[in-house]
Every structure is written in structure tokens, then in C-alpha cells.
């Protein structure tokens, strides 16, 4: 796939910071830390010069802390999206390019919501007779102080705007991606790693929303602003959670492989211990996202996997009458073995896997349940039959004689 290389995409803030030494010389985390310290030093110095109360310094530091924490979260967007690999679907790739294009538009639309918040807020603060300024700075503050506070307010508003802007765009992107994913054909898909990146960014935005709680002490005397802050927080958190949820339902396997995994009855599991390999058939289930198989507690492969959890897991469709119709998919990677200790954390996962097994292999469930069987074979879930999840790092797909490597 030939995409034009992703240009360095930056927001106004990143661009400014990126040009001024010493910030331009530091990695972005240190650069943000340095900005934090610098703002704090300026604030405290001004506080001493103009003889502000301790409470004013506290309010100022809190505002700086919020602005800086938001920066830390939001500035992860650009580097993450920069290393994003192109989806193997033309439509999905176009969507993500459009998403990035709007997010980092050269007209800097990202500053618009910030301005929309900043201007009414300043009016409210200076002309609506709220006593917030008195509370922050005392009576008749010096213009230099007002300037510094306005700067901090802009910093906060700009980032609030970014929070709204990124979470709304993310939700739009997730809904579109989900729709496009339903129209995929053959090997089209967006790889697992990339989907997880998107999800991680959404979760970052959830934290972004939570951090706005820190603003509440600053507004404590103004019920209206408290309500607005809660509204803002709720909006950012819900949009981002919903977006993350949608991404978690986008299949990470292309339709050809998805269908093969969904429709086959058996798989082969290859394991290796000190170079000696072992391969046996297993029954497995697939819930659209995760692949689980089942093994007896006494099985040799379980003992091997407990020492070396690297596996090869193969699902195929074999047809001797038409070899060109043969299909197989190989997942190589690791496994997670579920034990009793996992029940509290993964109860729902384990239960739904068990249900899928009963639905997919009703006869097995019935036959395994009889007590005439050797103990190891009895279907006493979790105790005698162990649930194992396949976590692929690499996928190879064969169709006829063609071998295709599919990115995860």
C-alpha cells in the first residue's frame, strides 16, 4: 500500500513550543515538565511581588496543574497517530486520513472550540459581576496579574476546546470505522495494533474528562460554572467511552479469516519445549474478538504451555476435491492460561467462553459430562478442563497455494 508519508502534524501549541528553545531541544514529556515549572515559578514570583495570599498561589498552581496534565494526555495524539500503519482497506484508510486531516488541519480548527469557550468566559468573568476574580486575586488586582491569569485561562480554555474537539472527532471516526468494517471484503481490515492505539487514545480522553474535576475548587462559589464543568466532564467521558466501546467491536480480523475462524470446528495447537515440538487437535470458540480453546488438565500440551507459552495455532478448511479452495490460517504468538485465580477478574470472559463451547459443541458437552470417562476428560469446567486464550502476534493466511502475511 502506497501512502504519502504522514507529514509532521502539529497543533498551534505544539508548533509554538517546538520552535522555542529550550523546549524545542527536549522530548515532549520533559518539555511539558519544564513548562510546568516555568509557569509555577512565574506565578509564585508574581504572587510575592504583588503580595498575594497563599490561597491565590494555590488556585494558580491548581490551574497550571490542570493545563499541564491535559497537555500530557492530549499531546500523545500526534505521536501515536504518526506511527499508525495504514489500514489494509482503502475506505478505512481514507477515513483515517480524513480524521487526521481534520484533527491537524492547517487552518487550526482545533483552536476554534477553545476560542468559543474563552471569549464568553472572559465576558462572564469581567462584566457579569461574578466575584471569582476577587476570590482568586483579592480586591483590585494589578493589571500584570490580570494578564497572567488571562493567559492561564486561555491555556485552560484552549485545552478544554481540544478535549471537546478530539473526543467528538474520535466518536465520529469510530462510528464511521465500524460502518466501513461491515462492508469489508476478503482481506481488508485495520490491524489489531492500530485499533488498540485508537482505543488507548479514547481512554486518554476519559482521563482528560476526569481531570476537569480539579477545576471545581476554583469555581466553588459559582454554581453555574460548577454545573458547566460537570457537563463538560460528562460529555468528554461519555463520548470517549462510547468511542472506545465501538472500537472494541470492530473486528481485527479481515472477513476471509474471520469467517474461517468462525465456521471451522477444529484447530491444531503446536507447542514446543526445549526444542521438542508437540501438535494436537483441539476444539475452540471465537467470540468475534477472542479465540479460546480447551484442554484437559492432564494434557501434555498444558504442561508444555505452562513452561513455554509460545504457540502456533492453525485453523483450516480442507477439501481434497478442490485443492485451490483450501484455506488455512496460522496464528503464532502466546497463550493465556486461565486458572482459578483468574475467576474474580475474568469471570464474565470465562463464563461467556464456556457458553460458547456449549453452543458450538453440544454433543461434546453432553458426552464429556458422563462420569464413566477418565477424570481428566470430564467436563468439570475450570477444574478439569482448562480454558486457554490465543494471543496472536503474527498471522499467516493460505489460500490455495498462495501465502499471505496479515498484519496484526
Amino acid at each position, binding site marked *: 500500500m502506497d501512502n504519502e508519508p504522514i507529514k509532521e502534524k502539529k497543533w498551534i501549541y505544539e508548533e509554538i513550543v517546538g520552535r522555542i528553545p529550550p523546549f524545542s531541544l527536549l522530548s515532549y514529556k520533559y518539555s511539558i515538565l519544564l513548562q510546568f515549572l516555568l509557569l509555577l515559578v512565574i506565578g509564585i514570583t508574581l504572587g510575592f511581588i504583588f503580595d498575594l495570599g497563599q490561597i491565590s498561589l494555590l488556585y494558580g498552581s491548581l490551574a497550571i496543574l490542570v493545563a499541564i496534565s491535559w497537555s500530557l494526555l492530549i499531546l500523545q495524539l500526534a505521536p501515536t497517530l504518526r506511527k499508525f500503519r495504514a489500514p489494509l482497506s482503502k475506505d478505512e484508510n481514507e477515513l483515517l486520513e480524513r480524521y487526521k486531516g481534520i484533527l491537524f488541519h492547517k487552518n487550526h480548527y482545533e483552536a476554534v472550540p477553545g476560542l468559543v469557550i474563552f471569549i464568553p468566559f472572559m465576558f462572564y468573568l469581567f462584566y457579569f459581576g461574578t466575584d471569582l476574580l476577587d476570590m482568586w486575586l483579592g480586591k483590585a488586582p494589578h493589571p500584570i496579574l490580570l494578564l497572567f491569569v488571562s493567559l492561564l485561562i486561555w491555556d485552560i480554555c484552549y485545552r478544554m476546546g481540544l478535549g471537546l474537539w478530539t473526543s467528538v472527532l474520535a466518536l465520529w471516526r469510530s462510528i464511521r470505522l465500524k460502518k466501513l468494517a461491515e462492508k469489508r471484503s476478503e482481506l481488508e481490515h485495520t490491524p489489531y495494533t492500530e485499533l488498540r492505539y485508537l482505543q488507548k487514545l479514547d481512554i486518554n480522553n476519559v482521563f482528560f474528562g476526569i481531570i476537569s474535576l480539579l477545576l471545581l475548587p476554583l469555581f466553588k462559589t459559582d454554581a453555574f460554572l460548577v454545573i458547566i464543568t460537570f457537563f463538560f466532564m460528562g460529555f468528554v467521558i461519555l463520548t470517549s467511552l462510547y468511542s472506545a466501546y465501538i472500537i472494541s467491536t470492530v473486528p481485527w480480523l479481515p472477513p476471509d479469516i474471520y469467517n474461517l475462524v468462525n465456521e471451522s*470446528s*477444529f484447530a*491444531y495447537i*503446536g*507447542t*514446543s*519445549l*526445549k*526444542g*521438542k*515440538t*508437540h*501438535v*494436537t*487437535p483441539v*476444539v475452540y470458540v471465537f467470540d468475534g474478538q477472542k479465540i479460546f480453546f480447551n484442554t484437559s488438565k492432564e494434557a501434555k500440551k498444558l504442561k508444555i504451555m505452562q513452561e*513455554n507459552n*509460545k*504457540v*502456533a*495455532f*492453525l485453523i*483450516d478448511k*480442507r477439501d*481434497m*476435491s478442490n*485443492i485451490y479452495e*483450501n484455506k*488455512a490460517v*496460522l496464528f*503464532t504468538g502466546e497463550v493465556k492460561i486461565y486458572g482459578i485465580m483468574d475467576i474474580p477478574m475474568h469471570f464474565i470472559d470465562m463464563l461467556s467462553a464456556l457458553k460458547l463451547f456449549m453452543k458450538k*459443541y453440544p*454433543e*461434546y458437552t453432553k*458426552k*464429556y459430562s458422563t462420569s464413566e*470417562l*477418565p477424570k*481428566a*476428560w470430564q467436563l468439570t469446567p475450570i477444574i478439569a478442563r482448562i480454558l486457554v486464550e490465543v494471543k496472536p502476534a503474527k498471522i499467516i493466511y493460505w489460500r490455495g497455494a498462495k501465502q499471505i502475511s496479515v498484519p496484526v
Partner: protein
Amino acid sequence: MRIPEEIRNILYGNYFGYVCTSDKNDQPHLTPVFFIYDENSQKLFFITNDRSKKVKNLSENPNISITIDIRDPVNPFNNEGVMAQGTATITDKAPIYFLSEETLQLYYDIYQEFKSKYQKVIENKPLGENDVIVQINVEKMVYWKGPHFKSLKFKKDFSG
């Protein structure tokens, strides 16, 4: 040692084998193969491309296992199969006039066997220029039917 009838039936009655190899980091790899079983030498053979991952793995680690089975999605008690474990020997790859007579004979025999077993599929397709024959020297076989297992050990074959 004669191998039991039920194992013979599986080795002769099935077309697909699942070969497992692993690299020097103990990362396993699996592929389906067409195979033949030679009763006289009690060895299994399959043909593969010398650039394949399994050949690369075998050059790092000659241990190999292959499973041949009958699967019944309805009744697990009909599931039946054999796993053979051992080491692999790969025939030299060289232009045909440099191959030893022994290797040539092996190529010829194996190819004839393959042709008769997989006639429908390979028709008259000749061996490709990168194809090599992998010979599995079996050290152990595990047979199962439903929940019952049987294990067979073979004497190590030091002749190669």
C-alpha cells in the same frame, strides 16, 4: 517392530498432516502438508519449498512432530489420530546431476508415492526447483481414539 493396525490405517487413510517445528527461541510454527508413510523404513515424508519457514526452523532445530487425525465435529469419541515425534532430515538440494544415487532414488520413489496418493491434486506437476524432501525419523508415536491413548517408542535410527 510392527506398528498396530489402527495406526497404520490412519497413516495410510488420510491426506493431511500437520507439521510442527520450532525455531531457536522455542517459538512453534504449524503448517498443513501432504505426506506419505513408508512402512518399511517406518518413516514419514513430505515435500516442501526450501525457503519455507519450516525448513528454516529445521535448520535451527531438527525436532519435528506431525499429527494426522480424523475429526468428528459431532461425536468426540470418534476422534482418532496419531502424533509422531522425531527429528527431520532434509535431502540436499543440488542440481539433479550432482545428487547422490541414493538421493536420486529417494526422490524418484517418494515422488512416485506422492503421485499415486495425491493423483487428483498434483496430476503431472513435476517437483519444483526449490522443492526438498523432508524425512521424519520417528522416535515416538502417540495414538488416541476418543479418550483413550496409546504410546509407542521407536528405536533411534542412527543411520540418518
